[in-house]
């Protein structure tokens, strides 16, 4: 692939591999997430239950990891979709820039919420 169209000189192999690894991690964490949210609806959907879990620093770290890996996997996947279309260099750089910005911004918002407890 040409850097002229895709804004990258790399083969993409590391991000291809990371996409699979993060996908498998998200698969495992998502199972836990769903059990926690739906085993009993109050366990996932009340302020008191959330506050109680947030007292545990390990749980906070898990949540931050979940947010970061989830956003990475999603936005990296979105970029993969865009990469399949031929477009001028300025456009691909703009899209890539927007995806990076969204990633940093939403990770920041999510982490700020988690750390506010």
């Amino acid at each position, binding site marked *: 692939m040409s850097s002229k169209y895709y804004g990258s000189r790399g083969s993409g192999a590391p991000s291809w591999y990371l996409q*699979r690894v993060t*996908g*498998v991690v*998200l*698969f495992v964490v*998502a199972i836990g997430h*769903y059990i926690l949210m*739906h085993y*009993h*609806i*109050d366990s996932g*959907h*009340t*302020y*008191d239950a*959330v*506050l109680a879990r947030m007292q545990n620093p390990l749980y906070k770290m898990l949540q931050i990891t979940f*947010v970061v890996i*989830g*956003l990475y996997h*999603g*936005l990296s*996947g*979105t970029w993969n*979709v865009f990469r399949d279309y031929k477009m001028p260099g300025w456009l691909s750089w703009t899209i890539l820039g927007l995806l990076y910005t*969204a990633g940093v911004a*939403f990770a920041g*918002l*999510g982490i*700020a*919420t988690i750390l*506010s*407890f």
Partner: protein
Amino acid sequence: MSSNYPPTGWVKVLLAYHKFSGSWAWVLHRITGLALTGYIMLHIIALMSLQKGKEAFDSEMLLFRTPLFLFLEWFLFAFLLFHALNGIRIALVDLAEGARYHKKLYYAVVIIGLLLFFGMGYIMFTQDTLHSVASVK
């Protein structure tokens, strides 16, 4: 490549996929993936109300317990389910010997997915709604 290549127009592009389970898996994986990426951002914004305290958060959660949102959440689960199960299929194809049985894997994704979808529907529309009525009022 088949004779209708290169396809012109999006209808032709879509029709070109009809024969192969792998192509459908690819298209559905993209659609569900883009939707889930949008959802994770919405999810982060929605949970920011945690910073406003108990009342703000609990009143927001009441909205998400209404039948409409439960129904939407059920279909969110369908999207996640397909993406997750097909993602395992992709990992098996790419990192293991899955290429030898990728079609069987696809049918397994569909069958297991449907079972889990209806199982979750049963849990959400019996247990979740019952609990929501009992615990909120």
